[in-house]
């Protein structure tokens, strides 16, 4: 703990200090003090906001006030409802093809330099995805009912 703190809070060497052995311009280890300050503010802010409002608030509880907020209308049913597992399957499939798109973009940008090799590599990648797609399709993951 003290070692970490010492690491974070060290001051950079002064201009007249001992000469540094290498051509290191701005050592990255000294840049953490703003982060420490930021971290402290991040912790303090919610504590202060909640604490002050707790101190000055008028504590009147009534039924309307304790009701969960649901866009202003009266809530229907419990919030802890069971979702159909299909939502998760769709979400997972989305994730897979989303990643594919992310891979395709940088590939397309430097496609002229990758040439045939890049084409083959991307075809391999998409080929594996197509196998998974075919599998999911045949298993009925794309049908809702």
């Amino acid at each position, binding site marked *: 703990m003290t*070692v970490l703190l010492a690491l974070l809070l060290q001051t950079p060497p002064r201009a007249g200090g*001992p000469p540094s052995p290498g051509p*290191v311009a701005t050592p990255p280890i000294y840049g953490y003090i703003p982060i420490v300050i930021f971290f402290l503010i991040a912790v303090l802010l919610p504590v202060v906001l909640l604490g002050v409002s707790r101190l000055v608030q008028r504590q009147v509880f009534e039924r309307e006030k304790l009701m969960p907020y649901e866009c202003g209308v009266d809530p229907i049913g419990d919030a802890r409802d069971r979702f159909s597992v299909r939502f998760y399957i769709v979400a997972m499939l989305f994730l897979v093809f989303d990643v594919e798109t992310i891979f395709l973009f940088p590939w397309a940008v430097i496609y002229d330099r990758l*040439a045939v090799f890049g084409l083959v590599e991307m075809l391999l990648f998409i080929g594996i995805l197509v196998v998974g797609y075919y599998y999911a399709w045949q298993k009925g993951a794309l049908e809702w009912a």
Partner: protein
Amino acid sequence: MQTDFQTIATQAMQFIMPEGILTLFACAALVLDVMLPRDRKRFVAWVSLLGVGLAFASLWILYTSIVSKGTPRTAFFDMIVLDSYAVVFKSIFLIGAALSILLSIKYLEIEGEQRGEYYGLILFSVIGMMFMASSVDLLALFISLELMAVSVYILVGYFRRDKKSNEASMKYFLLGAFSSGVLLYGISMVYGLTGSTNLAKIAAALPIVASANFNPFGAAAPPDMRYLLLMSMILMAAGMFFKVAAVPFHMWAPDAYEGAPTSITAFMSVGVKAASFAMFGRLFLYGLPDLRGSLAGDPASGIPSLPGWALLLGIVSAITIVWGNLGALTQNNTKRLLAYSSISHAGYVLLGLIAGNQTGYTGFVIYLFIYTIMNLGVFGCIIALRRRGIVGDRMEDLNGLMKKAPGLTVMMTIFLLSLGGIPPTAGFIGKFYLFAGLIETGNPWLVRLAILAVLMSVVSLYYYIRFIRAMYIEGETEPQPVTLAPSLRVALVAAAILVIYIGVFPQRLIDLTQKAATSPGLKTYSYQQGATKPAEPATPPPARGMPGERDRQTATPPR
């Protein structure tokens, strides 16, 4: 001029040919699963087995044409290395996968869960394991570890309707994900300290970072980076301890092993363990060799010297051996018992890393090889007990097996004695090398560790012999006959023959594993008056005769 991409296409691709073949067959298993009618799913198993066989053949071609002819070759921007260490471990995984597939065919039919995904997932996890053995880059290691782990999480929960299986999968997944996070944290700190994810570059940067006077920025009061380095080492070790189920991090193992389908318990107790040890060896022997002994301090300025990973591993392996063996004593569920036994075996394998000499490394590799075969054999025998209405994982299910299935009983006895380390079987050879490695160092503490390990393997005989007592002495408790499916019979007979063959003629396997233990980059150490000092990089020992003679000659005996 050749571009990088041309190099990859023309040369590097052949280095990952076995993995490529397996990928093809894993995809084929998925596609076949949806194409075949329900009663033909068994075909997928044979296709996957063919894939494993072809991968093995291509690995053999790689070995004879490239690896056995000289220096290891790297590919994919130094991410993959093809050396004998990788080849031996890859063959362990392939043998393990082939035996597991053979064990599964009939078992899944009885359970009514014969599906292609099962074999596809096994192949995918083997691909991950094979990359774990040959990666020399932290990122490649981590990604292949996850490929293996995610496939195995699914396989553990493969019996969807079985609550126990689901629970096991959930526990394994949560703890596995947590341990991956810990490992990744250590990896990120090592990267921050050394500036590279390549293990060779990390090893080269370590002596500088680990020195007590490391001061790259010319600070007036230089920070002592050794603490951070040690912390990242401990985090990486903790992540790996989780994966190999060493003691402070072994909690998931009995539950996951008990709940998983028995064939998967067999597969994960050998495959996942061997792969994690392969990665453990790569990380610690190739990446952090200088953190092994103590990190020298500077007495003049009052900077203390710090212990390295040999001490950590020593303590953990001692606790693991004791705890695993004591935990197994009272179990009545055979799968749970074997889970504890596999925990203690993880402790034994760690001894090879601690010894740090040629014999120790040979023992490390040879023991994992032998353990794969004998443990799959024991689990195969337990799978054979699964009949209609009988799960076969209680100790009583073994009662009177000698009268029902004498052949099976004899094979089970061979595997159990081998696990206990009784001489004519292969397990003895493995344990011999592990313990001999420790004793050769001459360090009094390591010799004590070896004595503890020997004592605890005597304790382990108690619970292995409980199996034997149930099979030979106890009377039958249920009349249902035991029949062996042909595929299971082939796997068990092959494993039993291998266990006996290696036990009687170990020289071929020793030669092979010694090559793995002498790959360049692997550092050996000799002990001088209890202090660790790195010796010269390993040179191949004479082809015949006991290894490590060089170490014995140079090491001075303790006082």
